[in-house]
C-alpha cells in the first residue's frame, strides 16, 4: 500500500515530504473544516431541539419541523405561511442581488481605469488606497458608517448645520446605511477579480476595436466585458454569497424594524437556544444561494471552470 502510494506521479514530482504535507493539509482542511461541521449541522437541522442531556433519548428524533417552521410558521400560528421569516429571507436574497449589481457597476469603471488607463504609479497608489481601509475590522467599519449615518450623525449634522436641510434624513430607518455598508463591506472581492480579468486584456484589442470605428460603450460591451466575464462572475458570486451571509454589518446598520436573514439564524442559535432550527435556517440559506448562483451562471452562460481561470 505504501509503495503504491509513493510511486504515484504526485509523490515523484513533489518529493515525499512536500507531497505528504499537501495531502494532510488538504484532507484536514476539507474534512475537518468543511465536511464534518456541515454534516453535523445538516444532521442537527433534522433533529428535535432537546437539551444536551436528552440527546439520544426518546425526545430526540428526526423531524422536518424546523424546515416546515420556516415555510408554514409555528403550529399555533393562524397564518397559512410564515410570512415574517419568508419575507426576511426573500428580502435578503433580493437586496443581496441589488448589492451585487451595485458593486459591479461601481467597481467596473474603477477596475478598468486602474487596469488600462492609469499610469503604473497612479495604479499602485489607487490599489493601496483601496486596500488600506480594509485593514480595519468589518465591525469597526460598520460602526464608522453608523457614526456617519446616524440621525444625529456626521452627515446629518453637516447638512442641517450648513442649512441645506431643516431636518436630518433618517438614513438608518430607511436602511440607506445598511445598503451602503453592505456595498462597502465586500467591495474588494469584486474589485480584484475584475481588475485581474481586465488587466489581462491586450490593450491592442481595445485599440483595434476603436480603430474599426467602435464607440467606447460598444468596445466595452463587445470586447472588454466578454473578456472580463470570468472575473465578473467570480466577483459577483463572492460578493453575493458573502452579502447573503453578512452578520456584522446588518447588526450594526440595519433599522430596528428590519432583519437580515443571518440575524434570524443568529437569534435561533444564541437567543432562543434552538440550534436545530438555526441549523435548518442556515442550510436553507446555503442551498438557496447556491441554486441562485448556479441559475445565474446558467443564464449568463458561464461554466464553473471559467471562474477559477
Amino acid at each position: 500500500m505504501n509503495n503504491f502510494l509513493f510511486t504515484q506521479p504526485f509523490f515523484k514530482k513533489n518529493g515525499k515530504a512536500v507531497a505528504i504535507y499537501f495531502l494532510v493539509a488538504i484532507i484536514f482542511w476539507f474534512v475537518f473544516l468543511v465536511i464534518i461541521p456541515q454534516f453535523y449541522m445538516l444532521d442537527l437541522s433534522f433533529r428535535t431541539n432537546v437539551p444536551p442531556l436528552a440527546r439520544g433519548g426518546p425526545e430526540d428524533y428526526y423531524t422536518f419541523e424546523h424546515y416546515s417552521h420556516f415555510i408554514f410558521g409555528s403550529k399555533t400560528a393562524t397564518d397559512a405561511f410564515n410570512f415574517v421569516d419568508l419575507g426576511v429571507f426573500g428580502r435578503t436574497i433580493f437586496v443581496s442581488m441589488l448589492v451585487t449589481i451595485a458593486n459591479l457597476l461601481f467597481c467596473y469603471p474603477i477596475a478598468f481605469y486602474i487596469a488600462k488607463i492609469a499610469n503604473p504609479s497612479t495604479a499602485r497608489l489607487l490599489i493601496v488606497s483601496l486596500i488600506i481601509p480594509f485593514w480595519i475590522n468589518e465591525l469597526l467599519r460598520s460602526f464608522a458608517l453608523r457614526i456617519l449615518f446616524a440621525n444625529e450623525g456626521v452627515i446629518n449634522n453637516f447638512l442641517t448645520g450648513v442649512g441645506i436641510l431643516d431636518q436630518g434624513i433618517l438614513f438608518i430607518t430607511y436602511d440607506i446605511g445598511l445598503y451602503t455598508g453592505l456595498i462597502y463591506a465586500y467591495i474588494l472581492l469584486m474589485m480584484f477579480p475584475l481588475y485581474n480579468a481586465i488587466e489581462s486584456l491586450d490593450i491592442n484589442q481595445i485599440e483595434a476595436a476603436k480603430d474599426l470605428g467602435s464607440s467606447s460603450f460598444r468596445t466595452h460591451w463587445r470586447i472588454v466585458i466578454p473578456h472580463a466575464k470570468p472575473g465578473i462572475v467570480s466577483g459577483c458570486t463572492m460578493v453575493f454569497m458573502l452579502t447573503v451571509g453578512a452578520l456584522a454589518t446588518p447588526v450594526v446598520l440595519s433599522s430596528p424594524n428590519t432583519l437580515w436573514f443571518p440575524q434570524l439564524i443568529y437569534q435561533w442559535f444564541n437567543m432562543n437556544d434552538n440550534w436545530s432550527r438555526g441549523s435548518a435556517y442556515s442550510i436553507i440559506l446555503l442551498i438557496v444561494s447556491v441554486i441562485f448562483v448556479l441559475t445565474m451562471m446558467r443564464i449568463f452562460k458561464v461554466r464553473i471552470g471559467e471562474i477559477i481561470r
Partner: protein
Amino acid sequence: MSADVELSDVSVTFGSFYAAKNVNVKVNGGEFFSFLGPSGCGKTTLLRAISGFQEPSEGKVLIDNKDMSGIGPNKRPTALIFQNLALFPLMSVSENIAFSLEVRGVSKEERKKRADELLELIALEGQGDKKVHQLSGGQKQRVAIARALAVEPKVLLLDEPLSALDLKLRQRMRTELREIQKRVNITFIYITHDQGEALTMSDRIAVMNEGELEQIGKCDEVYNNPLTPFVATFVGENNPLYGKVTGIEGDKARIETADGQYLATMNESKKLNIGDESIAFVRPESLFIPRDGDNFDNKIDVNIESFEFEGNLKNFYASLKSGAKIKFSVPNAIDTSSITSGSSIVLGFESSKSVILPKASLAID
C-alpha cells in the same frame, strides 16, 4: 477609394524625448509606402499619429487634404493592422471581419454578405464560422487584413504584421499583401525594420533614424543612391571605406584611404569638396574577382579571412592592409575553390557602383 496622406512638420514628443522630429512626407493615393528603420526609430509613433492614437505634439496629419487634428481613430478613414494582429479571440472569423460593420449598425444579412465577399478575397471561403484560434498563422494574418478592409478604409496602416511569421510564410505573405493592395487599390502604409520586406513590396520607402527621416524615394533609388551613411548601411549591406577627398572628376570624387585611392560617385545633393572627410561605400555584390580582360575603375587588395555559405550566395570576409574589414559575395554558380582562407587576392569595383558621402555615423555603429 484611396487617399493621400500627408505629414506636415510632424513632431511627437514624450517629455523632452523626440519620438518623431519634423517629419514631412506625402504619401500618394494608392501607393504602397513603407517606413523603414531600426526599432525605436519612431516609425510606430508615426503610424499611431496617422491612425489617431497619438496626437502629434507639433505639425499636422492630413488625409485627403483634410486636417485630422482632434479626430479620433474611430472617425478616421484609416484601418490599422497591429503587430500582434489583435483579432478578437471570443468572436468567430466572420464576426471579426464584420466587426466594423456591426459597430456601424449594418444589418446581419449585409454583414454576412460582406464577410463572405472578404473571405473570398483572402481565400478562406466557408471558414467564417471557425474560431480565431483554429486558424494558422498565415490565415490569421489574412483575416486581420480582411477585418481592416471591411469598411473600405481609404488608407490601410500595417505595423510589422509579418514579423511573427516564419520565413517561408513571410515571403508568401509579401506577395499576397502586394496583390491584395493592387486589387483593392487603396493606400498602404507599412512599417517595418526588415529592409527585404520594404524593398520587395513598396512603391516608395522612407528610411527613418532616431525620429527623423533620412531619405524618401523609390526602392532602387534608395538602395543605389543612399543619401546618408546611415541609409547606405541600413538598407542592404555596404562596406565603408573611410578617407579624404583628394579630387573631383565631374560627378565623381576620388577618395584617399589608408589602403589606397578609389573613385566613387557623388550624390547630386551631397556635393563634396577636396579635403572633406568622407566615406565611399561598396556593396558586397558589387565587388568582383576580376577575370582576364576585366578592367575595373577601382582595385583593392584583400586577404581572405573566412567564408560562409548562404545558399544562393557565398560570402567572403576579408581584411585590407590597414586592418579594415570587407565583405563580398559571389553567386554560388561561380567556382571559388581556389579562394581559401589566408589567400591574398585583388578585387575590383566600378565607380558607378560605389557612392561617396560626407562622413557620418553608420547604422551598424
